[in-house]
């Protein structure tokens, strides 16, 4: 049997607190913590305008792709990436070996402020996740709880 690491309600509340505080200080619009495989771990902010799942997948890819660039100049990886747009921008920074933090922000704030606060926030997030990974308990469900019906149905339009 395999178990899935569990993000408990308490863990989620702690992460929400850390990320909420970060958004308040920076006036950024959205921040998302993802693993390097592109899975969303936690998110905070205005999520209506954006598909966070897609952003997470693309950001993980973007972050990983630049790793090779970093190696060419003798770095293990770039700790942070900044994508500048006309009105909206994205800042990504490494949390730990498994995790990345993405921040989307507009003209109300600056990249300097986001960069400044993201360092401390990443440390706090890393502490929570370290506890999560070191905890022995994982989640596995009962076989009877899994639907026997096909998961996906071919649905002619």
């Amino acid at each position, binding site marked *: 049997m395999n*178990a899935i690491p569990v993000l408990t309600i308490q863990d989620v509340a702690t992460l929400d607190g850390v990320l909420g505080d970060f958004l308040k200080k920076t006036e950024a619009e959205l921040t998302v913590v993802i693993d390097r495989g592109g899975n969303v771990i936690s998110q905070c902010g205005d999520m209506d305008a954006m598909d966070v799942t897609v952003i997470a997948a693309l950001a993980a890819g973007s972050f990983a792709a630049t790793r090779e660039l970093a190696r060419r100049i003798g770095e293990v990886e770039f700790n942070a990436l900044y994508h500048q747009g006309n009105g909206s921008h994205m800042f990504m920074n490494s949390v730990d070996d498994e995790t990345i933090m993405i921040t989307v922000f507009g003209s109300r704030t600056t990249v300097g402020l986001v960069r400044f606060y993201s360092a401390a926030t990443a440390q706090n997030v890393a502490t929570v996740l370290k506890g999560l990974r070191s905890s022995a308990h994982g989640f596995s469900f009962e076989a009877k709880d*899994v639907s026997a019906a096909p998961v996906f149905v071919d649905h002619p339009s």
Partner: protein
Amino acid sequence: MSIINYASREIQFKIVYYGPALCGKTTNLNYIHERINPLNRGDLVSLATATERTLFFDFLPLNAVVIKGFVTKFQLYTVPGQVIYNATRQLVLRSVDGIVFVADSQWEKMEENVESWKNLCDNLSLQNMSIDDTPCVLEYNKRDLPNIAPVNYMEYVLNNGKKRLQSFEVISSTGQNVFATLNAVSQILLHKFSKQSEAPQGAPLPVAIPVEPPQTQKLPA
């Protein structure tokens, strides 16, 4: 490895479509995107070249309610099949939960199929994973073409590991068995995490699950 979020009651799984160049991985995702209930899917994102060859990956998020009390999110990815993009394939494989290996059934593609399969095993081992421990199904695609290898031969060439994998004859361009393949890998994946996973749900099938006979169209006289 995914994380389960108890607050939002969500579980995320990552399924990667792997295989040689031009075997039909993106076609699988296109068909699924086209045919699945729009309420259960997000946007299909393709990072492709101007000639529609996959450059980085294709990505399709799907939602389902298959575990009591949880929303299950499946994230489908394809890898670029071209040999030169191995570093990208390694990136896409990161944290993978399930794999659909898409093989091209044409005789002249057998060597590429085998190379790609070996490449998959090598790339999994780089992240300390093994194909024997990873939920995986085989898809023998393009069964409608004239110059295809018999299923028994493909089984002999590709499905010869310690663990016999479920395999499917597929025509991804028309969608035949595309959903069957996806459902099979999803179920294997879900049962891996269930408490009774030591008792496998159904033994691997000895032969590939066939496609329905294709409906031949009469050419106009």
